C-alpha cells in the first residue's frame, strides 16, 4: 500500500525533528477518547513553540481543559478564552502591541468551525482584511461538537446533528439530516487574499507539518489561515480507533481536498487524488450518514465532483 | 448674554461660521459657545446653528429660542423657513441679499438690518456661492459685537476645505465694507 510506505518515511522524519520538543499542553486534557482535535492541538503547539499566545474560543479546544478550570491550566504557554465571536480581533490586539514594542510573539488561534464560520466570521473576516499578523487555525469537526453536536454552517449536507435530527417528519416529508451544503470557509478566506491559506488533514501529517511551517512564516507578514478537517468520533458516530481511517477516506474520496494558496503562487493541490474512491466509502464509515437515501448520496457525490471542478478551476486560473 | 441664530443651507458653512465667530469672540476675551442643530444636514437642506456669547462663563448647552440677532447666509431661505421665530423685540437681521431694504422680508421685531450682496461678492471671489465668511464681516459691521481684526485672526487659525485663507480674508473684508446698515424706525405700539 503506497500510503503505508509513505507514512513510514514521513513519520521518522517528523519524529526525529520534533519528537523531543516539549508538548506544550498538559499531559492530561479531557478530550474524548480518540479525539482528533487533541491530536492536532498537541502537534500544532509543539511546532509553533513557546513564544506564542494561544487563543481558544469556546468549543472542544477549551472544553477539554486547555484554558483550565478553577485555577489550573491545560497549556504551558499563555492561553485564553476569547469570546466565540471575537478571537481574531483579540489576537490582533495582542499581536499589534507586541509588534509595537518590538517583540516577536506568534499569535495563534485554534478555533472550531462554528466559532469561525458562523458567529465568529465577522471578526475573522475583518482581521483577514486588515492582514493582521495572526496564525488562525480552524479545527473543522463540522458542527458544534462541544455543546452536543449541533449543526454549524460547516456541517455537510445530509449529516445528522442534534439540531438536524432524523425523523419521520410530517406530511410525508421525512427529516433526513442537514438540508444545506457546507459553507466552504477556506475558499472564502482565499478571497480575502490572505498571506497563506491551506486545507489540511491529520491523516496527512507531513503535508500538515509543511503547511504549519509555511503558515508560521506567513503569519510574520500577515494573515495565515489553516483549515484542518478533524473527524469527531463522538459526534460523527464511529469507533474511536477509526479516526485516521475516516480522515484518510475523506481525502481519498475528494470529499476533502488538500490544497494551499499564496497570493504569489495562487492555489495549488498538495495531495491531489487522481483516482478517487466513491464517496460512499467515506459516508459508510460513520453513523451520522447512516440514514441517507440514494438521492441524498447522489447529491453528495455530485457536490464532490462540483467542488473538485471548482477548486481545479481556481488552481488553473491562479496558477497560470 | 447675546444670542445669535445662523440660518443657511447645508454646505454653505453656517455651522462653521458659528464656530469661527465663537473663536473670534474668544480672541476678544469673551466667552462663547456654539451649537449646531442636529439632523440630516445634507447639501442644500435648510440648517440652523446657534451662538451664545457673554462676558462671563456660559453654562447653558441648549438651542437658542429667543435670539438677539439672526444671520441668514442664504438669500432664498426666508421664502421657505420662518427665520424670524422667537427674535427678541429690537432684534437684528443680517441678511445676504442683493435687494434693497424695501424688498427684504422683515418681522416687526427687527430694529436693525444689515444687508450684503454676499452671493454676488462670493461668485467674484470664489466662483462659488460660499457666503459664510462674508456674512461674518456683515455681522461685525452691523452689530459691532465682534471686531474685524478678531475675525481675521480667527480665520487665520481655521482649516478651509473649499478655498484658501487669502480668499476668505478678502471675503471677510468685503463683507464688512460692502454691508449697508439700516435702522428701522417704528412708532411704539402704544
Amino acid at each position, binding site marked *: 500500500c503506497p500510503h503505508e510506505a509513505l507514512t513510514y518515511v514521513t513519520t521518522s522524519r517528523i519524529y526525529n525533528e520534533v519528537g523531543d520538543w516539549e508538548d506544550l499542553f498538559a499531559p492530561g486534557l479531557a478530550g474524548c477518547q480518540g479525539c482528533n482535535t487533541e491530536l492536532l492541538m498537541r502537534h500544532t503547539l509543539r511546532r509553533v513553540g513557546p513564544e506564542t499566545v494561544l487563543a481558544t474560543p469556546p468549543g472542544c479546544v477549551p472544553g477539554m481543559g486547555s484554558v483550565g478550570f478553577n485555577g489550573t491550566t491545560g497549556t504551558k504557554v499563555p*492561553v485564553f478564552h476569547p469570546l466565540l465571536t471575537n478571537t481574531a480581533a483579540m489576537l490582533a490586539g495582542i499581536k499589534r502591541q507586541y509588534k509595537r514594542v518590538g517583540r516577536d*510573539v506568534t499569535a495563534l488561534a485554534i478555533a472550531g468551525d462554528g466559532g469561525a464560520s458562523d458567529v465568529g466570521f465577522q471578526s475573522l473576516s475583518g*482581521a483577514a482584511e486588515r492582514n493582521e499578523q495572526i496564525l488562525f487555525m480552524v479545527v473543522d469537526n463540522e458542527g458544534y461538537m462541544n455543546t452536543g453536536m449541533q449543526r454549524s454552517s460547516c456541517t455537510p449536507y445530509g449529516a445528522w446533528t442534534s439540531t438536524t435530527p432524523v425523523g419521520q417528519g410530517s406530511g410525508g416529508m421525512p427529516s433526513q439530516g442537514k438540508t444545506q451544503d457546507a459553507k466552504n470557509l477556506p475558499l472564502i478566506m482565499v478571497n480575502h487574499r490572505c498571506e497563506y491559506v491551506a486545507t489540511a488533514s491529520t491523516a496527512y501529517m507531513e503535508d500538515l507539518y509543511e503547511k504549519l511551517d509555511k503558515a508560521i512564516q506567513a503569519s510574520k507578514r500577515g494573515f495565515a489561515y489553516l483549515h484542518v478537517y478533524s473527524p469527531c468520533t463522538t459526534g460523527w458516530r464511529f469507533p474511536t480507533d477509526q479516526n485516521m481511517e475516516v480522515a484518510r477516506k475523506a481525502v481519498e474520496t475528494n470529499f476533502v481536498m488538500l490544497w494551499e494558496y499564496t497570493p504569489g503562487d495562487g492555489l495549488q493541490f498538495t495531495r491531489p487524488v487522481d483516482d478517487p474512491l466513491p464517496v460512499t466509502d467515506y459516508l459508510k464509515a460513520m453513523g451520522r450518514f447512516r440514514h441517507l437515501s440514494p438521492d441524498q448520496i447522489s447529491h453528495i457525490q455530485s457536490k464532490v465532483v462540483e467542488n473538485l471542478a471548482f477548486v481545479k478551476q481556481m488552481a488553473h486560473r491562479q496558477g497560470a | 448674554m447675546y444670542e445669535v441664530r445662523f440660518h443657511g443651507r447645508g454646505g454653505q458653512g453656517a455651522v462653521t461660521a458659528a464656530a469661527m465667530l*465663537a473663536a473670534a469672540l474668544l480672541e476678544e476675551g469673551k466667552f462663547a459657545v456654539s451649537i449646531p442643530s442636529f439632523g440630516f444636514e445634507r447639501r442644500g437642506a435648510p440648517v440652523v446653528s446657534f451662538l451664545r456669547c457673554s462676558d462671563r462663563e456660559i*453654562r447653558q448647552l441648549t438651542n437658542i429660542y429667543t435670539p438677539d440677532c439672526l444671520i441668514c447666509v442664504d438669500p432664498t431661505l426666508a421664502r421657505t423657513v420662518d427665520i424670524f421665530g422667537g427674535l427678541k423685540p429690537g432684534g437684528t437681521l443680517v441678511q445676504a441679499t442683493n435687494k434693497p431694504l424695501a424688498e427684504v422680508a422683515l418681522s416687526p421685531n427687527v430694529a436693525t438690518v444689515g444687508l450684503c450682496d454676499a452671493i454676488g461678492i462670493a461668485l467674484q471671489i470664489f466662483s462659488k456661492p460660499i457666503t459664510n465668511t462674508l456674512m461674518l464681516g456683515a455681522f461685525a459691521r452691523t452689530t459691532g459685537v465682534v471686531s474685524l481684526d478678531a475675525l481675521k485672526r480667527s480665520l487665520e*487659525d481655521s482649516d478651509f476645505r473649499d478655498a484658501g485663507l487669502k480668499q476668505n480674508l478678502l471675503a471677510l473684508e468685503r463683507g464688512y465694507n460692502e454691508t449697508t446698515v439700516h435702522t428701522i424706525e417704528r412708532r411704539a405700539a402704544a
Partner: protein
Amino acid sequence: MTTATLETPNQTKPAKQKVILCEGNEAAALGVALARPDMVAVYPITPQSSLVEHVAKLIADGRMDADIVDAEGEHSVLSVLQGGALAGARTYTATCGPGLAFMFEPYFRTSGMRLPIVMSIVTRDGITPQSVWGGHQDAMTVREVGWVQVYCETVQEVLDTTIMAFKIAEHHDVMLPVNVCLDGNYLSYGTSRVELPDQAEVDAFMGVKDVNWHVALDPLRPMAVDPLTGGSGGKGPSTFVRYRKGQCKGMQNSLRVIEEVHAEWAQRFGRSFAPLVEEYRLDGADYAIMTLGSMTGAAKDAIDEARDAGKNVGLIKLKTFSPFPVEALLKSLNKIQALGVVDRSVGFRWNCGPMYQETMGVLYRLGRHVPSMSFIGGLAGADITVGHFHRVIEATEKLLSSPSVTMTIEPVWLNEKD
C-alpha cells in the same frame, strides 16, 4: 479646530496652558492624545463619529503616537483593545447607542477581566423608535456590568475627565474599565473655550504606565486567562465569589480614587470638578433638583433665577453614576426636604428615570421621609431648557406642602408638549 494663544484671565494655575476652542468630541480626542494610549480602535457611529475622526487625524498628523485599528465593528473594537491591554497597551475607544449594544458581549467581559480600558460613550437614545440623537438611554442600559461611569457637564470637563479616566482605571486598587459619558449633540458638538493642559504636566500627572501587572498574555509570564470558573462543586462556588467580590471591591475603591484623582488634577491644573456629587446653592435650600450631564448648565441658570425670585431651591448634580456614590449623595440629601430628579433616559421597570430609581434607595437610607418626583426630558435630542427647569422647580416646590407623596407613580415628561 481654531486655536488662539491667549492667556487665560482670572486663573491661578500653572503656566503653559493653551486656550482653544473645540467641540466636546474634539476635547475628548485631545484628552486621549494627552494620555498617550498605545492603541485605539475605532468604528464610526453618530454622534460619536467626529470623535474618532479627530483621533485619527491626531495620529495622522503625528500629534499622537498610537496604533489605530480601524476594526470592522464595535464588537471587534473592544475585543482588539482587550487583546492590546492583555499585552500591556494603554487603550481607548468610543461608541454609543447601537454600537454599544453590539459591543455588549466584550463590554460585559472587560470589567470581569479587570482591564483598565477607557471608552467614551457619546450618549445616544435608542434604539427604537429609531433615533440618531442624544439621550442617556445607552449608557444607562449597561449600568449593571461593572464599568465605572462618569458623566461630564462641559467641554472642558470632557477633556480633563478623559485624561483622569485613565489614571482612575489603572489605579491598582481599581483596575476597572471607565466610561466617560458625554451627551450626544449638545456636548459632543457644542463648541466652547477650553484650556489645553501641557503634555509634560499631563505626563507627570499620569506617572508610569503598567496596565497588565495583574493579568497578561505574555510568553514571559505564562498563564491561562479566564479559565472556566464556578459550578456547584469543589472550589467552584468559592472561587467565583472571590472574583465577583473583588470586582465589587474595585468598584467601591474607585469612589475614593475618583476623589483623589480629581483633587490631584485640581492641584496640578487649577481646575476642579466635583468628583462624585456636586452641590450648587444647596446650603440653606429647602428642596433641590437633581441633574446629570450637560443639562446641568441650564439647570444652574434656572436655580439662579429661582433664587433671585425668592425660591429656596438648590441643585445636586451627579458626576459619578457607577458606582453609585451613596455616601456622598446621603450628605447632600440630608440638607433638603423635597427632591425632583431629572433623567435623560427611561427606567422601564419602575416607570421613572433610572437616576431617580437609584436615588430612592439612598433616600431610604436617610431614615426620614423626603417626598420626591421623577422628571424625564431631553430624550432623542430634545432640549431641556431653563424654562423646563423652572417647571421642575415649581413642581418640586409643591412637594414641600404634600408630605404624603412618597414617590412618583408616573414621571413628568418634560418634552411631552414641546
